[in-house]
């Protein structure tokens, strides 16, 4: 605190509270809508007090889905697909990036810089700009509507490789010398020295990549045509595609709450790793 200015502190709190209100308002309305009947929600303007159908709506969404649009898949199934997809993308990225960063930092071999730049360039090709040809490759490989098709094209990551490279470069050389004197080979060193040291970086990256994987939209939209392979963010879109008259907003909003829950929980519970991951991966 530089100086006492009580009125300015009041103003700061007022602005922050206003900001919180704007940020939280959609969430609150979503929650309220998810506890009412479809008729209550459609009755414009809907009441802004929670209704009494909380359990009923969530049970219905999780186990039956919404018949309103074209989708009748239970949200429980969609959440499972999303979870598998998010975990596969996060863990896959971490695994292949750890290995390739290890190779680039701890070995000298012909083509090292060439491969490094090859990985670097992928930073410039987000999936959004190469959708049609990537779709063709995946369909040629027969991977439509499969977990492999959902995750593999999103696994290669220049960011994660950079992050680990950056971190490995800060690991003191004495450690590798000591390991070599003790007769440890490269993989032994990787497993027993490097991996334990990278724990915090791995956790930070995991949080960011889990959210990234869970929230993917465009790619699953293209390659999943069977309802039982829809991740939840796609499922929710199918529920509203029938238009206002047939959309069961209470079920849609319950699904929205469910779709938000895992990534938001991860951010709030692992806030420290999240902030570290965010800052590190943008360096």
């Amino acid at each position, binding site marked *: *605190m530089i100086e006492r200015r009580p009125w300015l502190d009041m103003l700061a709190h007022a602005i922050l509270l206003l*900001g919180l209100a704007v*940020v*939280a308002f959609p969430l609150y309305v979503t929650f309220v809508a998810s506890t009412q009947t479809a008729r209550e929600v459609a009755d414009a303007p809907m009441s802004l007090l929670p209704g009494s159908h909380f359990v009923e709506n969530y049970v219905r969404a999780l186990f039956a889905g919404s018949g309103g649009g074209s989708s009748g898949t239970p949200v429980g199934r969609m959440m499972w697909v999303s979870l598998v997809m998010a975990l596969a993308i996060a863990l896959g990225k971490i695994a292949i990036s750890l290995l*390739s960063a290890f190779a680039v930092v701890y070995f000298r071999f012909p083509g090292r810089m060439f491969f490094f730049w090859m990985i670097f360039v992928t930073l410039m090709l987000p999936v959004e700009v190469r959708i049609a040809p990537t779709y063709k490759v995946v369909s040629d490989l027969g991977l439509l509507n499969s977990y492999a098709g959902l995750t593999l094209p999103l696994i*290669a990551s220049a960011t994660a490789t950079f992050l680990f490279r950056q971190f490995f470069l800060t690991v003191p050389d004495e450690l590798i010398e000591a390991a070599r004197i003790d007769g440890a080979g490269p993989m032994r060193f990787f497993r027993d020295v490097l991996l334990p040291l990278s724990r915090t970086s791995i956790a930070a990256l995991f949080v960011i990549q889990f959210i990234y994987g869970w929230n993917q939209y465009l790619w699953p939209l293209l390659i999943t045509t069977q309802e039982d392979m829809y991740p939840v963010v796609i499922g929710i879109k199918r529920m509203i595609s029938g238009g206002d008259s047939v959309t069961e907003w209470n079920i849609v909003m319950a699904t929205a709450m469910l779709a938000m829950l895992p*990534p*938001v929980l991860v951010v*709030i519970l692992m806030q420290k790793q999240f902030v570290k991951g965010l800052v590190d991966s943008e360096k």
Partner: protein
Amino acid sequence: MEKRVVFGHRTLPYLLLAPQLAITVVFFFLPAGQAMWQSTRMEDVFGLSSEFVGWANFADLFRDSVYLQSFRVTLVFSTLVAVIGLAVSLLLAVMAERVVRGAALYKTLLIWPYAVAPAVVGVLWLFLFSPAVGVLATALNRAGLPWNPRLDAGQAMVLVLVAAIWKQISYNFLFFLAGLQAIPRSLIEAAAIDGAGPARRFWTIVFPLLSPTTFFLLVVNIIYAFFDTFAVIDTTTQGGPGTSTAILVYKVYSDGFRGLNLGSSAAQSVVLMTIVVVLTVVQFRYIDRKVQY
């Protein structure tokens, strides 16, 4: 920076790199190459054969008023997302840095929208602004402002802007807060002793020192608005009404997968790739400078 001590092994490094490289080649270089190849070809009406047409697809693209319109929409959209998003987040970050009590709580409550999927963000705001059932739409109608983003291009733009900015505030906020906390207290204290008030201190000391963060966030936000907002647009307006909210990424998708015009869609992909390359280079040049600074 390089390691002085390394392992010697002939084949192991290649094995370690293999998984990453395999995925990179199959899902990045192959498709990118194919997009470039396809962008120079045109299919016949039945999609049975294609012939080499050189730059024709690109020339068509930049003569096409719909495409140019989409370019304009993207520019307006991304500028507004970046400017409004940064202004709001900076205000909140400056306030959060000022308060002593409850700062951690404010932070926690402000960062969670980062985790919400853009598609879900779109659905939430679509619901709030839905002319038939939306709480905000009803309020606007009552206030004498007829609200229907399905008919009014300007209102559709407002809808996607609000959704896109709402999602990005938490990200900007975190980086601004970190940037503010990195400014040496002694500078601000010295200015306070010299009699500079809070506003003066902000504009002459804090804001200039924050400019690396601001510039970095500007680039990140533009990239976000260009590419990551696809889901927001697809769930809220589907690019409509007409093409008033069809940003470039949306148009690649709708031309390639709905219109099945592969040559044009591929040419659009190549244009987008060029834009990403330019933005990434700008970002890295800036980071280089920051390292020296």
